[in-house]
């Protein structure tokens, strides 16, 4: 594989272009008309002046053929102009910039909970000897992964906010209002980490070098900590992309249940009202995050795993 920076950058731009074009095509093919939706919201099915509708269409670049619209959108994108939201009249870049910090705070807090929790469960499942506990630790992740996020969120709200009054149900007032949504979002991620790491630990423990170390009398914890975990953690890195996807998808639900602002809420509202410019902005943002994450993962692999470092030189 060619790994020159230019090649990588080209690849990244290609992915962004593909994401942009694909989402444009899908949104264009959707039945429904964004301007009609905008006007329908104004309530009264009054007679609308076609000239005024045409003016609105032109203003939001929704007139012209598919290719004209696509070309125009791509040209504006190249000038870093993401357009204006049809629903709110706000520039898309500003809407994204306003929504991103809340989502980032949520996603990072979720990761802060998910990574130690996932790793902890995987390690505990490996180390614990009591049968029922071990079975529980092995099976819990599969169960948690299959719980719907909105349901977990509502349950947590019901218990900790409405019943015990410990934490607020809404708003963004510092740490307190971040706890419940972060836990909600973290649980499936932690379960996924625990599943992958648990399997990986199990397979590394079967390898001859572990047997050898064990027969040399290396202690259980030392063996796990120093030798098994280091090798077993490499598959976790390939999980980063999936986790990012999980966090973004989970943000839509979590932000809705906890009435938080963020990219997920923005995306959900924009899709519902076919606010094309905003949907495209969100898609581009997500694609950029993916590209950056994958780039970072690719760069980290060789650092963690000497085999890949050597393998890359033929």
């Amino acid at each position, binding site marked *: 594989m060619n790994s020159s920076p230019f090649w990588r950058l080209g690849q990244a731009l290609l992915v962004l272009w593909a994401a942009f074009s694909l989402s444009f095509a899908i949104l264009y093919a*959707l*039945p*429904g*008309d964004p301007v*009609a*939706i905008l*006007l*329908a*919201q*104004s*309530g*009264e*099915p*009054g*007679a*609308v*002046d076609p000239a*005024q*509708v045409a*003016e*609105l269409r032109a203003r939001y670049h929704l007139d012209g053929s598919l290719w004209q619209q696509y070309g125009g959108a791509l040209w504006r994108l190249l000038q870093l102009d993401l357009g*204006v939201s049809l629903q*709110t*009249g*706000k520039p898309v870049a500003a*809407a994204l910039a*306003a*929504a991103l910090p809340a989502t980032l705070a949520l996603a990072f807090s979720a990761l802060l909970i998910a990574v130690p929790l996932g790793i902890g469960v995987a390690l505990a499942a490996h180390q614990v000897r009591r049968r029922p506990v071990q079975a529980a630790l092995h099976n819990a992740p599969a169960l948690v992964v299959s719980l*719907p*996020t*909105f*349901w977990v969120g*509502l*349950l947590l*709200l*019901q218990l900790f*906010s*409405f*019943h015990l*009054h410990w934490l*607020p*149900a*809404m*708003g*963004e007032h510092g740490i307190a209002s971040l706890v419940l949504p972060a836990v909600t979002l973290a649980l499936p991620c932690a379960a996924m980490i625990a599943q992958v790491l648990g399997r990986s630990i199990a397979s590394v423990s079967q390898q001859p070098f572990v047997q050898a170390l064990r027969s040399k009398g290396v202690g259980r914890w030392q063996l796990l900590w120093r030798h098994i975990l280091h090798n077993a953690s490499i598959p976790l890195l390939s999980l980063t992309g999936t986790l990012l996807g999980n966090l973004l998808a989970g943000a839509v*639900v979590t*932000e*809705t*249940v*906890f*009435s*938080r*602002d*963020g990219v997920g*809420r*923005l995306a959900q*509202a924009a899709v*519902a*009202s*076919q606010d094309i410019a905003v949907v495209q902005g969100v898609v581009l943002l997500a694609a950029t995050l993916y590209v950056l994450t994958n780039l970072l993962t690719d760069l980290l692999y060789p650092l963690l795993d000497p085999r890949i470092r050597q393998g890359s030189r033929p």
Partner: protein
Amino acid sequence: MFRPLAILAIAVALAGCDGKPEQQAATGAPAQPQTGGVLRVAFDGDPNCIDPQQAGNNTALNVGRQLVDSLTDQDPQSAEILPWLAERWEVSEDSRQFSFHLREGVTFADGSPLDAAAVKANFEAIVALGARAQLAGTYLAGLESVEVTGPLSVRITFRQANAQFLQASSTMSLGLFSLDTLKRSAEERCQGALVGSGPFTVKRFEHNKLVRIEARPDYNWPSSIAGHQGRAWLDAIEFHILPESGVRLGSLLSGQIDVNTSVPVQDEAVLEAQGVPSINRPNPGIVFSLTPNVSRAPLDELAVRQALNKAIDRSQFQGVISRYQKPASSVLATSTPYYQDLSSHLAYDPQGAEKLLDDAGWHKGADGWRQRHGKRLGFALDYWQATTPVLELVQQQLRKVGVELRLNKSTIGQVSLQQTSLDYSLWFFNLTRADPDVLRTVFLSSGRNVNVRGPLPLDRLLLDSAASLDAQKRGTLIQQASAELLDQGHVIPLVEAATVTAFRDAVRGLHYEASTRLQFYDTWLVQP
């Protein structure tokens, strides 16, 4: 999506575990209104655009109402139009000219005066907003001129008779903004760059999160039907956007919000069981109705349309709607001015329906469906509203007389596209306005014409009803037009829309204005 009934069922079941709602302020509450406090109000969706001149959705209008004053006000009980910014007015005999005389000393929040020139600038700006100000634009349709006849006197002339304009002048859609605001772009105004003369001013608007408005300390020109003078009792109002109904319910019960503006039918029982106070009111205007597209077979046949109206047993609806809702008894809701009970035109008459269809050649086949020349009698209905149980009941009732109704729950986008391209057999909608003129805007053959029909004598009735402010004359015309719409099967009314607002015990003086939107000027908090 994650909105199935299951969530609600869980939320409702769990809400039952909660203790009593917060009632610490209920006992020994002072009878005197208190100044101060921040009222926390929950909305179910983002207002998108909080400029009342442009907005149309309820959340936006609920915010907008607090920011602007109107020329007149409408008594929610009597529907009478009463003074607000205008102390008095004259309407010409032909309902084309309206002269308003403003009260003195009213200012916008930036200190500029609210005078005749400001009224002129506002109305002209609304017309210039075009399709962006659809609601307000409809009210001002046919505007010929706005003349400043004195510092505080303004004359508004229409090209045609426009009796509804007097009521329209009481709406937030025709509320007034300062000249600086009118110079801003439509988009900036949507985002909250709004300076009105109302009791509250916009402080913050963060999409999908919150709108915060604060009381104006020097406000002193409330409507003539307001409960007090001077500034609003509350210091501020925070509108929080809580999309999940279970979260709104739990937040209200646990005292994290004060007012829930959107109570779904499923939550009513819980709130009642917990003793949570609430107010409710039918939305005035056109009830939830089906309107046939008469340019399409077989709805072009009078007998078929009439049979549909006769085959529906409206008394059964009560089982599937809110306890605060009523089955329709006319095309207009009971809270609409000039409403008259026309339920005799909507009587359940299955035999009558069967006979009409038989006579028209639609005979029941072996499978129970009616057909003619091998074609089954059936219609498709695409809708997006949360009224599926009512429509399913209609489906079952029509099935009994052999008519097929195919329901397709769709998105607002898809449905509005069908409507603009006239690609529908039946259109399902309701429309909120505290004036019977909605009939004209919706049904007039040269208006929105939801029936896609040619001119009829009915148009004369609709036009004449818009031409007179004489209550008795207008009432008769509205009744004749409504009855004609029902008898000709141009509308199949089903159920009234209703708004239910639940609130904490500590909230006092919460009430609806004439169009069933909330007005917070007289609202106060016990122990703010």
